[in-house]
């Protein structure tokens, strides 16, 4: 498979106005696991005939972990530069596969002068599905027992619970909900810049607590929507030696694994 992903700079040079900017984020750009999600999502966009571009090397961290760690200076420095870049390209629509980027772009950039229509990739995929641009044949996932892990920043913080579930429904999986789901979803342990530091002293790591709950569901896959959740849950499975029993996937990867009827 070969796929050409344009940067905004390239698209602008070619006189193309992409319908959406794909905000990749640090994890999506650099983390080996999250890169797979980036590539999967880009492939789906391509297959559905969505014209998109990335900022590429002009993209910087949204500043979310710095802000939540308390470092407003670093946050403002990055946010203001990003807003300058986005405004320079007159970006209107943004889609991202990272709920933290999503939250910051959507809820925090407006106060700094960055006003965009921002959606999470699950919402974007659902709208493709609704408009008929994306057609999925269950196939690979039909009848499989899976559970879904709500990330805090997509679910509780931004009230997006339905889009990811609609996508899973379209894969014809057997979705088993955990007791702690939706508004009661348990954090994977990465938020608030915890991803980048050692845990405070305690009895257990948070991702282990969650991974144990998932293992208790007797499912073969847990669907996630966040690169940090992916890492945390995968580590949690490994810690219990369950990495071969319960697979941890982003929903876009699951969609790509099923049969997408190409519009091209």
């Amino acid at each position, binding site marked *: 498979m070969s796929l050409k992903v344009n940067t905004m700079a390239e698209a602008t040079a070619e006189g193309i106005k992409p319908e959406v900017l794909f905000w990749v984020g640090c994890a999506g750009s650099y983390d080996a696991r999250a890169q797979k999600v980036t590539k999967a999502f880009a492939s789906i966009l391509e297959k559905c005939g969505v014209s998109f571009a990335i900022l590429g090397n002009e993209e910087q961290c949204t500043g979310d972990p710095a802000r939540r760690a308390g*470092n407003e200076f670093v946050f403002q420095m990055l946010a203001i530069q990003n807003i300058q870049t986005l405004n320079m390209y007159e970006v209107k629509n943004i889609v991202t596969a990272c709920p933290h980027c999503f939250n910051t772009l959507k809820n925090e950039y407006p106060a700094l002068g960055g006003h965009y229509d921002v959606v999470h990739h699950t919402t974007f995929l659902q709208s493709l599905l609704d408009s008929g641009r994306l057609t999925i044949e269950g196939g690979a996932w039909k009848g499989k027992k899976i559970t879904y892990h709500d990330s805090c920043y997509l679910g509780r913080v931004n009230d997006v619970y339905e889009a990811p579930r609609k996508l899973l429904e379209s894969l014809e999986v057997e979705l088993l909900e955990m007791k702690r789901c939706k508004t009661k979803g348990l954090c994977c342990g990465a938020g608030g810049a915890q991803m980048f530091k050692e845990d405070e002293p305690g009895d257990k790591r948070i991702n282990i607590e969650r991974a144990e709950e998932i293992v208790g569901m007797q499912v073969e896959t847990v669907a996630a929507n966040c690169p940090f959740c992916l890492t945390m849950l995968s580590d949690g499975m490994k810690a219990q030696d369950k990495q071969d029993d319960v697979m941890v996937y982003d929903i876009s990867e699951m969609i790509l694994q099923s049969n997408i009827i190409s519009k091209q």
Partner: protein
Amino acid sequence: MGIQQVLFLLVLSVTAYLAYRHYHRVYKNIFLGKPKTINDRPSERWKNVLLVAFGQKKMFKNMIPAVFHLFIYIAFLFTQVELIEIIIDGIFGQHRIFSGVLGGWYTLLINLIEILSFLALVATFIFLYRRNLLKIPRFVKSELNGWPRLDANIILFGEILLVTGIFTMNGADGLLQKLDPGHYPDTGVLFLSNAFGEMFLTNMTQDSLMTLERAGWWLHFLVVCGFILYLPFSKHFHIFLAFPNVYFAKLRPRGEMENMPAIMNEVKNMFGLPVEAENNPDVEPNLDFGAKDIFDLSWKNILDAYSCTECGRCTAVCPANLTGKKLSPRKILMDIRDRATEVGKNIDSGDLTFFNGEKPDGTSDFYKKHYQDGKNLFDYISREEIHACTTCNACVEACPVLIDPLEPILELRRYEILSESAGPPDWVPMFTAMENGGSVWQMSDEREKWRTEI
């Protein structure tokens, strides 16, 4: 004027005077916090008051306590009618003044109050059981040791006394209506208290019944007065503060942290960008960012703290707390309240050494600049606690009265990082990578390299 009337007026005025002093003190403590204007979207705010405060919407995520709490709450609301009657009767030396005015409605109303009081009594025993015997996890956390646990039980015992007062008074009254209809107007059939009277009070003489009726009446009134005076020292203050607290609760998106215009403008200047004047309201050139004490928190954060009834729904869902970390959102609120109370007490002591000898002008700004007692919020809240937060918002979601435990945690983090240049050392490489490379990790690859590998 009878002796009872004199006594009643005396108790009533002393209670009113003391209540004014205690309530006013809490009011002043709340406004030790930073000024903050909250007046946007009033219709949404009233809707919240209606649904969340009056309607207890968020309580119903947890059915068992919600239903029993509802019994006590509705009993509390309706009993106010009886309380108003008691006050009017007490002042004017009357007996059951509403019975003549309301007629059949009075019978209905008192029956309703009695049924609700009975349900409230059942709820009270269940709550005592849940707290002291069943030991529900959120009720046995260490931050409740000592006074908070006693406080909860005192209120429940107070509730038992209140209901006892009502049934003693009404039970005796029902029998007296037959013995002395001239003095005891007919209330109609009151099912519960009449049954109570028939069961326990029938062998009593008229005199003892009259004494008992008075005893019940006074017990109820005195416990109410005690309650009013006790509330400002108790977690139970939520019965009043829940309403304003819900009204003033944050409406902007949960995921939006309060912007810091001073820093934003400095960064904009650094990049040579224009700074809008309206975004720059009276920003002082001070380098104290975030919060180290209650003066740096907004008054709403302190109102949150006084509105907290220590139910622990936040702590029960906190992922850090669930996995044995020290952080408990409830404790953060309790600490803020206790610190505000401590500072308020010191300010009221009139000892000018708390202000370096300066004369206070009563503004929060003055106290922020001059108040010192050698302590701050970090003497109550440890670094370990604030470092354990994942900002997952589970605590925010869980609170039935829309308290936001997350904001003060993040303000403390801001102080630590921005004003002290301290914080978890693990974060330093992350900040450096972000500042220098625009990414959370220090990477040698180009950010867009992945696109060449598809």
